[in-house]
């Protein structure tokens, strides 16, 4: 078994031991989307108008809330040292951990979101756009969040401030994700948006594993 597979399998198994954990993230997503109508008021037209933004925001929050322990657990129990000492590239380890996170959060969120869209009265096409953009956009969120999680490990005072830099990195993904759904609502096509989202995800994939690995090495010192 390659180390990459082993790590992926381990993380998925850890989640499998407590299947409730995935449910919790999804439940959080549902609760969060419900909170916005409670804050804004129950007018159906208004809600349909802002549904895309709300659902994408809630997905971001759900991803972020489940990300903060991504590396911290390994850091605190010493398992991070074992990853740093594994005889294969740390970049792959970073990728495996982000992939495991995406499988247990991004993927289910993309499946669930269209159902929540129903509550907000989105059209059928809008629902499809929502699911697709989330499917394409969430890998970038997992990677960016993974970077923030790695940067905030341990002692460095600057860590928190660096995370502050990572947050705005999510903004483009959100804008194009929410924008795609709205484009559908206003009669436009969403393929351009989807392509841009895909490009963002690929860009993250091509750069962030290195950044995450560097941050993890810092934390190991």
């Amino acid at each position, binding site marked *: 078994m390659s180390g990459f597979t082993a790590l992926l399998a381990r993380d998925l198994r850890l989640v499998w031991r407590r299947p*409730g954990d995935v*449910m919790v993230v999804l*439940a959080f997503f549902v*609760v969060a989307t*419900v909170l916005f109508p*409670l804050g804004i*008021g*129950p007018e159906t037209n208004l809600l349909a108008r802002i549904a895309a933004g709300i659902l994408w925001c809630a997905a971001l929050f759900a991803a972020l809330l489940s990300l903060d322990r991504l590396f911290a657990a390994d850091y605190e129990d010493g398992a991070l040292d074992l990853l740093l000492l594994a005889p294969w590239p740390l970049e792959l380890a970073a990728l495996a951990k982000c992939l495991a996170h995406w499988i247990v959060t991004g993927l289910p969120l993309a499946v669930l979101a269209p159902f929540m869209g*129903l*509550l907000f009265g989105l059209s059928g096409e809008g629902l499809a756009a929502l699911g697709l953009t989330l499917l394409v956009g969430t890998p970038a969120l997992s990677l960016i969040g993974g970077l923030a999680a790695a940067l905030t490990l341990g002692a460095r005072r600057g860590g928190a401030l660096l995370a502050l830099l990572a947050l705005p990195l999510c903004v483009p993904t959100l804008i194009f994700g929410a924008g795609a759904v709205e484009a559908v609502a206003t009669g436009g096509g969403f393929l351009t948006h989807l392509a841009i989202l895909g490009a963002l995800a690929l860009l993250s994939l091509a750069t962030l594993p290195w950044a995450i690995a560097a941050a993890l090495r810092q934390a190991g010192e």
Partner: protein
Amino acid sequence: MASLHVLANPARFRRFSQKVLPVLSGATALVLAVGLYLALVESPPDYQQGETVRIMFIHVPSAWLAMAGYALLAGLGAALLVWRHPLAALMARAAAPVGAVFAAVCLLTGSLWGRPMWGTYWVWDARLTSMLLLFFLYLGHIALSRAYDDAERGDRAAAILALVGVINLPVIKFSVDWWNTLHQPASVMKLGGPSIHPAILTPLMVMAAALLLLFVVLVMVRTETEIDRRRLDAAERAQ
């Protein structure tokens, strides 16, 4: 109260439930059959809503039982935290998913009903929203009680949550009512007001009794399962 105290012992509960369960299950089947007959065959279709009115006979009792179920959880939580009744934890564990299912049934039947009635599966109505929040409270309870390796810790944490939740339930209901009436006074969901015709009221009440019995039977069966599971754990550990 004294008789309840006797049941606090899991072994005694077993003996009690083994005697009572067959009778209770039979009664449930009987009342359910009568109720379904009354609801589906006997009662007239509504002059406005047509045949879909029959959804109500499941929908409304489910709503009641979902609410009663949470009160039961809180009571069991208090019993666990204050008197340390060992049975209370097992019963709460058994009851939470049953209550959640009734809440889900209420939500599902309601939104299926909403489609023909309101033309949409969902509106942000106060009653709907507060039932949704109750469902979330159930989910939180279930997730928390299963979040620990040590089942007893999960039981007690969930008991604390149930107590706090039940204090908050009226507050949530009140605030949601207030929230909705401000923006959307008197929504579509006004059927006959309090004056329901006996032709509908009778099957409704019979169905409510049937589902209540079902609730009790389910909780008892699940409690027995929980007792067995704990026994099994203990036996394995003692080896």
